[in-house]
């Protein structure tokens, strides 16, 4: 470009390499900046996806429940010894015993107390309820054997849902001869079928020894630091440090000793090794039974029979299986024996999976397999009802006043500042208000949907007022002027013309406010809606809990099965929230008007 540069100005240099480099750098920085923005949005989306996926994966199993199909002998001596067939007497019978007997009959070899208790634990403590109801309804069943599904315990249920162990099965190559059909037996093989397992066991031992040595090394470093500090420390501190150093030194000695012992076992060429519960369990399925191995050599093994063998005959290669429970017994809740039973029941087709309706129809329970969200759903519904009834009229009225009637004065300004600030007050503070005012001062009942609804109404009121004002403001003044022009009073113009036109906007705001109230937890904790509620509340003054509080309560429980229940309750809550927000969006789109 041709014009001469004016004094004091530097003309824009376009052609030189430096200028080109500068432009390139500017565009690189542009691309970088743009990428940061995209990355931020992507990160947020990824987080949403991860949270939702995590909840779904945890929660979906809780929507199904496993049942055990058993043939139960309805023994009159246990449930109706007097033979009265009186429903009250029938109710008092020990049906749980009948059910347990039926299961024990499946595994007659289990004779010891511990074993029986383990077997009983496969069934829920409420598994007999269905049987009792059937028998009370139809006493003719007494004395007969009936087949019915029984609720399994949370532990058994979780095992079937994959929270147990993976199982690896391989056919044996050589022939294998058991020394007996029950108790401790020796399995003698014709080829080195156990050699790979022996090898793997030895590797695991060596790995364990390595870990122990590493831990010992870490402790030695700490001891070194402590000693350095001791040399420069004062008298008082020195005593404490010495004590610590002694404890650690002892621990290091123990670790080294254990590591050496393990290493010795690894190094030994001897053909046998003992298995423990920190290694994957090795079993052999042979002659219709199952043997858990305790010591293995390369071609023979010693083991305990978990499921009895039909015979002690030699099993040729290919007819027996070597079975591995990959998760070590020490790292799971179900024992090898329980796994064996559950797998056997599954093979027999006795374990069935159904949709868990009870989750929606029963109240809270200490037993995970019995716990449901009905109480919480009813509580949430009642609480939201109170909230809606209170805050919808008040919210609309306040919005109309502020938008249409309020004079411009300090009081109005105060009210407006107040509403804006209330919208940003932490929700737990509303809980304090509920506790101090509604419970302690006015003496309203604790844990009641009435108080919960009151607190939530105050909480979402600012939202509704702000949304209502926006909706009223969006109605063009020409509508009101037209009504005034034909002689309507100010209030008639508003109530007959402006308000109906603003109603969709107000409803949208209200639904969003209600969704907010539905998910609110903290203030309800303050007013005691954390009670353990089995029976759903029947009125707004009964003690109740709500869905988010139920989620909070369950999330604190140690049982794994409750984690799934918690996630399932969250899924239900989120479905409600999505439906409500979807409705709000639909309303907004449907009635959106461009003036």
């Amino acid at each position: 470009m041709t014009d001469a540069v004016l004094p004091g100005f530097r003309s824009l240099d376009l052609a030189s390499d430096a200028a080109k480099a500068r432009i390139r750098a500017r565009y690189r920085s542009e691309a970088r900046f743009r990428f940061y923005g995209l990355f931020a949005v992507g990160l947020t989306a990824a987080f949403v996806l991860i949270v939702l996926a995590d909840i779904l994966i945890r929660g979906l199993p809780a929507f199904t429940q496993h049942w055990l199909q058993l043939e139960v002998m309805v023994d009159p001596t246990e449930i109706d010894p007097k033979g009265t067939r009186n429903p009250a007497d029938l109710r008092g019978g020990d049906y749980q015993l009948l059910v347990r007997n039926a299961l024990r009959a499946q595994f007659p070899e289990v004779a010891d107390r511990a074993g029986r208790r383990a077997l009983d634990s496969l069934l829920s403590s409420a598994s007999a309820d269905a049987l009792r109801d059937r028998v009370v309804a139809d006493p003719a069943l007494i004395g007969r054997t009936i087949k019915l599904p029984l609720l399994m315990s949370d532990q058994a249920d979780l095992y079937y849902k994959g929270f147990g162990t993976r199982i690896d099965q391989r056919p044996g190559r050589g022939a294998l001869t058991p020394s007996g059909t029950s108790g401790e037996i020796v399995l003698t093989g014709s080829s080195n079928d156990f050699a790979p397992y022996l090898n793997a066991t030895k590797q695991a031992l060596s790995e364990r020894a390595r870990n122990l040595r590493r831990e010992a090394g870490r402790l030695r470093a700490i001891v070194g630091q402590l000693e350095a500090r001791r040399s420069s420390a004062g008298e008082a501190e020195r005593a404490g440090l010495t004590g610590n150093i002694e404890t650690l030194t002892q621990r290091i000695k123990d670790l080294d000793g254990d590591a050496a012992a393990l290493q010795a076992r690894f190094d030994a060429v001897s053909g046998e090794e003992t298995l423990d519960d920190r290694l994957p369990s090795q079993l052999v399925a042979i002659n219709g039974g199952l043997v858990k191995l305790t010591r293995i050599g390369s071609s023979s093994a010693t083991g305990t029979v978990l499921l009895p063998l039909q015979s002690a005959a030699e099993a040729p290669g290919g007819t027996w299986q070597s079975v591995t429970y990959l998760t070590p017994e020490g790292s799971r809740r179900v024992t090898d024996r329980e796994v064996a039973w559950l797998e056997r029941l599954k093979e027999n087709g006795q374990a069935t999976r159904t949709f868990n309706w009870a989750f929606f129809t029963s109240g809270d329970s200490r037993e995970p397999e019995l716990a449901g969200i009905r109480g919480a759903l009813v509580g949430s519904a009642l609480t939201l009802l109170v909230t809606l009834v209170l805050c919808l009229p008040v919210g609309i009225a306040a919005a109309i006043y502020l938008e249409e009637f309020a004079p411009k004065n300090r009081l109005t300004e105060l009210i407006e500042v107040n509403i804006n600030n209330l919208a940003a007050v932490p929700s737990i503070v509303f809980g304090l208000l509920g506790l101090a005012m509604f419970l302690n001062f006015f003496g309203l009942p604790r844990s009641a949907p009435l108080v919960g609804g009151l607190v939530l109404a105050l909480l979402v009121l600012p939202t509704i007022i702000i949304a209502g004002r926006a909706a009223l403001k969006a109605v063009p003044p020409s509508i009101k002027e037209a009504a005034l022009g034909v002689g309507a009073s100010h209030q008639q113009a508003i109530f007959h013309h402006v308000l109906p036109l603003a109603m969709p906007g107000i409803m949208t705001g209200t639904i969003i406010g209600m969704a907010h109230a539905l998910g609110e937890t903290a203030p309800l904790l303050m007013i005691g809606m954390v009670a353990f509620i089995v029976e759903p509340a029947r009125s707004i003054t009964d003690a109740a809990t709500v869905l988010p509080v139920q989620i909070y309560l369950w999330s604190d429980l140690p049982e794994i099965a409750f984690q799934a229940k918690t996630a399932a309750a969250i899924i239900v809550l989120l479905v409600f929230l999505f439906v409500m927000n979807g409705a709000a969006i639909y309303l907004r789109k449907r009635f959106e008007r461009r003036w």
Partner: protein
Amino acid sequence: MGLLYFSGVAVLVVVGFLFGRSRAALAERTEPLHSRPNYHGAFVALSILIPMVLLFAIGVPIANHVTETEALNAYDPQIAGDQLRRGAVLRDIVALANERYAGQPSEALRRAADTYASLRAWSIYLIICGGIVFALLGIAFSLRTLSARFRARNRVEAVVKWTLFAAACVAVLTTIGIVASVVFETIRFFDRVSPIDFLFGLHWSPQTAIRADQGGSSGSFGIVPLVTGTLLITVIAMLIAGPIGLFAAIYMAEYATPRFRNFAKPVLEILAGIPTVVLGFFAALTLAPLIRASGEALGLNVASESALAAGIVMGMMIIPFVSSLSDDVINAVPQSLRDGSYAMGATKSETIKKVVLPAAFGGIVSAFMLAISRAVGETMIVVMAAGLAGNLTFNPLEAVTTFTVQIKTILVGDQEFDSAKTLSAFALGFVLFFFTLTLNVIALQIVKRYREQYD
């Protein structure tokens, strides 16, 4: 009782309305009306409704008070001074009067319950009779006032207007209620614990003060560890939400195509709509173990309830908050400023960094302040994912506790009546409320000034 009374009110109001309306319709035949007959009906209805509701609102608390006091007097005249026993005895009296008392009642209790039941019956009788009298008076008054030229509409509209005003005042009453709730209990708390110890004490362990001889003098009510814990988690949250929220807002406002916005806006809205109890569950059961495991893999010692997990999830929670507020202020920057910058040959990012963000600076600061206030007041995430012990530390891998966690822990479940521990929760609430209120007021003020600048 309430149900009976208000169904009576409803019936009378409907009857009054119909009556007033038909009378006006009748009068209209001879003389033109000032107001439509419906307003005449409404005037009669209001003349019945207002006195009856007022009677109930004033009468019932008085009647309850009298009934309870007399019943307690009948039980034991000395009981009035003993707050703790008073409540327990009253519960027994009410239970017995309702025939739901479990066990064998004492003679005094039976006497008190009889007094209670008879007084209650009397008060119900009195209030209902009074209600009917008031309704009749209301009808008489309205019939005397009503005439064809009577401006019924203006009267009714005045009542409607006052009702609307009362509704608008609920917000103010709520604020007064909150202030009253926390202030009175806080004053009582400061009777036991000195404000200096409270504000500057380095140890927080309210549990140790349960024993009476310990009182509050042990210095276990120092909030400094709570302040640092809250601060630590808030800082972590803002370090995440600040940049991510701001960049997301910039991208959405300046770069995104409408199609991209249609996808990304709902994502942010979903995140904003996820209840915090759900995020707390995620923090406690998924993220915290993950952080702990990865920390251990790196040889770090991570607490199972580390501040990091709670802070990260809280940061994620406030991203939509920061981004939607920032989006608003960025969009409020006039297009002419951007055009001016583009016309100088600035690239988009240069325009954003050097013109748009400086112009939106005030609004963004206030968005951040509101976000901080949100993080400080957030309860469920920290209740579920942060610790209980008041550790004075800035290490994000350790467990810390916050104001909200302590309020929840102290007040949920059984509380000792009137103990320093219980009161301390209200003092914490007081600090929390006024801290967030100050932040909000300042932030809203900045936003307001900012809006005026570009309107």
